[in-house]
């Protein structure tokens, strides 16, 4: 073995260890490091993480990597040590996290007032947690990283400790997600009790070789672990924490929450299903698909409707994330490699668009000290370039063909059609139209001054500024970050290698037997061949129809008074109809946990009925 090979073999733990080390270094000297040093070091670390995870992605495409901590390799199919098991989906998730952390650091460079050294320390710990979660091959470590990235995220969410509002949002976030983590841990404990193993490959092999149909213990473990991760993924009815957290968290933190953290929740659920439960539950895919699809549809619709009903831009974007997670969840629920490949592309494009939109909300907050749509009415007229990019992002969000989100959604639609679930594409379109329309409406109102000028009801909502310096112009780092992100989302639709890569990554992730033999026997099985799903012209028509629907919804909301009487009455009764739904989002933690319990009970009950 040459020296280069040895070095390459040592890469896997670095994206986790390196940010943690730098974070400790920065925390130790936070009173005397100059700000410039802190910022440069943090940015440099995140860029290095991008390079490391990109290299891991490249290596894992050739052959998924299994790294044993301290060289404790498995003997006779029994894993004694702790592994990092890296396939392209995991490495891709870590790369996305690293890229968005770079974007967040660049965005907050120099101007952010609230950015002290601790902010950088927490961001780096958050990054390490996300990378650890993506790369872990061990079930218990999955829980540990889940809570570690959680702890950093709760602290980042309540970072502006002067204001009681962020504190309450951070508390709701922390308590809900911690209860989710307990659920996951309980599930892990049950699996350990059954199989005596913590390595996911070994648990999976033991569960499927048991030979009998899924029993109460296996179903309970599955329900607990899946629901635990779905809390982080903000799938309804576990989603209530998300808008509270997003409404109060600093803008660069929101970029990470929406762009990658929430998606990692879905990743966890997927990883556990495909490595641990696929063998056991594989012969009962039809009912399982139905149950998961129910959660996905509920999420897409609740998120979309609530998104359209908001006027606080940050909260609006948060609900749009809920809605889009619903669309991603549809891909998870189909339990197919081709659906997984579709949502892999979708997640990348969504991460870029959503991060860009949060950048714009940060820019508006910087310029006008507000993120309320009504209050900002016409304020952005002097910023045509920003407005144009904002509007374009809204169209991207409504899955404008042939760009990033459309590519993913079209593939999803095709796969759904082939699985007998063709109609879910309509729900996905509705969700995309609602969220895209809502963002478009805000854009038209703020940057063009369109729409009925309504008096702001109630007290004026003043947001605390996050930035220092003059409000007369937008710093180049802010507008530049946003523009690059929009461009990235746009480009994702045009890179054919990405589609090929996503297909291959998805097939690797769903290859349960291959994963087990790679980890436990060190004998790689021949990789299964990726299946190509051609996208038909019908999907383009659907994409265009979605965008038109979004524009129509935005126009209807802007010019409500000019609508014909019947349409006005309909829109009034619709908004009265969603009032109960709004009331459910009470900001009260007890309600949230009650809904979480209902969700877990529903998942468990339906599974029991289906597998009786």
């Amino acid at each position, binding site marked *: 073995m040459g020296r280069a090979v040895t070095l390459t073999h040592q890469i896997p733990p670095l994206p986790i260890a390196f940010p943690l080390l730098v974070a400790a270094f920065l925390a130790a000297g936070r009173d005397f490091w100059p700000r410039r040093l802190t910022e440069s070091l943090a940015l440099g670390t995140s860029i290095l993480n991008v390079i490391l995870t990109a290299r891991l992605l490249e290596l894992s495409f050739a052959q998924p990597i299994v790294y044993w901590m301290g060289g404790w390799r498995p003997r006779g199919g029994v894993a004694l040590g702790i592994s990092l098991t890296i396939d392209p989906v995991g490495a891709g998730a870590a790369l996305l996290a690293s890229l968005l952390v770079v974007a967040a650091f660049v965005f907050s460079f120099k101007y952010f007032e609230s950015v002290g050294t601790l902010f950088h320390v927490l961001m780096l710990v958050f990054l390490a947690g996300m990378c650890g979660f993506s790369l872990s091959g061990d079930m*218990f470590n999955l829980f*540990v990283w889940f*809570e*570690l990235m*959680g*702890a950093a995220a*709760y*602290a980042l969410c*309540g970072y502006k*400790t*002067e*204001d*009681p*509002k962020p*504190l*309450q*949002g*951070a*508390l*709701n976030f*922390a*308590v809900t997600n*911690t*209860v989710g983590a*307990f659920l996951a*841990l*309980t599930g892990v*404990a*049950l699996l*350990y*009790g059954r199989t005596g193993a*913590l390595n996911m490959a070994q648990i999976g092999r033991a569960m499927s070789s048991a030979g009998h149909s899924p029993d109460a213990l296996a179903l309970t473990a599955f329900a607990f672990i899946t629901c635990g991760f779905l809390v982080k993924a903000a799938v309804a009815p576990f989603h209530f924490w998300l*808008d*509270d957290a997003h*409404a*109060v968290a600093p803008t660069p933190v929101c970029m990470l929450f929406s762009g990658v953290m929430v998606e990692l929740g879905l990743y966890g659920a997927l990883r556990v299903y495909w490595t641990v439960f696929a063998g056991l539950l594989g012969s009962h895919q039809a009912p399982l698909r139905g149950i998961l699809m129910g959660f996905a549809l509920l999420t897409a619709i609740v998120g979309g409707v*609530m998104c359209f009903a*908001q006027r606080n831009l940050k*909260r609006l974007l948060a609900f749009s994330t809920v809605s889009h997670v619903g669309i991603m969840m549809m891909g998870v629920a189909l339990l197919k490699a081709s659906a997984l490949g579709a949502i892999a592309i979708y997640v990348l494009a969504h991460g870029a668009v959503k991060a860009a939109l949060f950048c714009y909300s940060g820019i508006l907050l910087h310029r006008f000290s507000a993120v309320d749509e009504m209050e900002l009415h016409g304020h952005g007229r002097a910023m045509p370039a920003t407005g144009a990019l904002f509007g374009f992002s809204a169209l991207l969000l409504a899955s404008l063909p042939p760009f990033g989100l459309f590519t993913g959604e079209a593939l999803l639609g095709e796969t759904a059609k082939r699985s007998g679930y063709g109609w879910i594409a309509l729900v996905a379109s509705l969700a995309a139209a609602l969220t895209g329309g809502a963002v478009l409406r805000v854009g038209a109102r703020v940057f063009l001054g369109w729409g009925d000028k309504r008096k702001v009801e109630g007290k004026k909502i003043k947001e605390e500024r996050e930035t220092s310096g003059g409000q007369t112009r937008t710093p180049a780092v802010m507008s530049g970050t946003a523009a690059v992100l929009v461009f990235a989302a746009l480009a994702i639709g045009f890179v054919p290698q990405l589609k090929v890569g996503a297909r291959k990554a998805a097939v690797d992730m769903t290859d349960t037997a291959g994963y087990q033999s790679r980890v436990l026997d060190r004998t790689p099985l021949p990789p299964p061949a990726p299946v190509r799903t051609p996208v038909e012209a019908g999907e383009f028509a659907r994409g265009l129809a979605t965008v038109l629907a979004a524009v129509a919804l935005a126009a209807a909301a802007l010019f409500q008074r000019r609508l014909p009487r019947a349409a006005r009455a309909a829109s009034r009764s619709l908004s009265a109809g969603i009032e109960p739904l*709004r009331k459910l*989002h*009470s*900001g*009260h*933690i*007890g309600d949230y*946990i*009650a809904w979480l*319990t209902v969700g877990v009970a529903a998942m468990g009950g339906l599974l029991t009925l289906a597998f009786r």
Partner: protein
Amino acid sequence: MSGLEWLMGWMGYAVAIWVFAAGLYGIVTSRNWMHLAICLAVMQSSTYVLLLSIGYRTGGAAPVFADIPVGARAVDPVVQALTLTDIVVEATVLALVVVLAVQIHKHSGTLDPDKLRELEG
């Protein structure tokens, strides 16, 4: 099967479920952030009980093979390591929750989530 074995077979799990439910009830009905943090800790304790019950073996010694022969009956050491890690991780989170609650009290003079209706959607 002796009476003790029979009892230990299901007692731990029953206690774990009971403690989990008690913590959950406390969180759902809580009117005070500090009380809620403690309920969270109660709920978390159920995971310790569950883990230790899973690793328990009747008549097993502590898994330290210094003064007992190798191969003697011992309880599972892995679950103890898991419990310890669980404690460390959750202590971090709990400390954070308490700090946030203290800060809330400092700024608004109340710990009642109902009185802090700043976040109505």
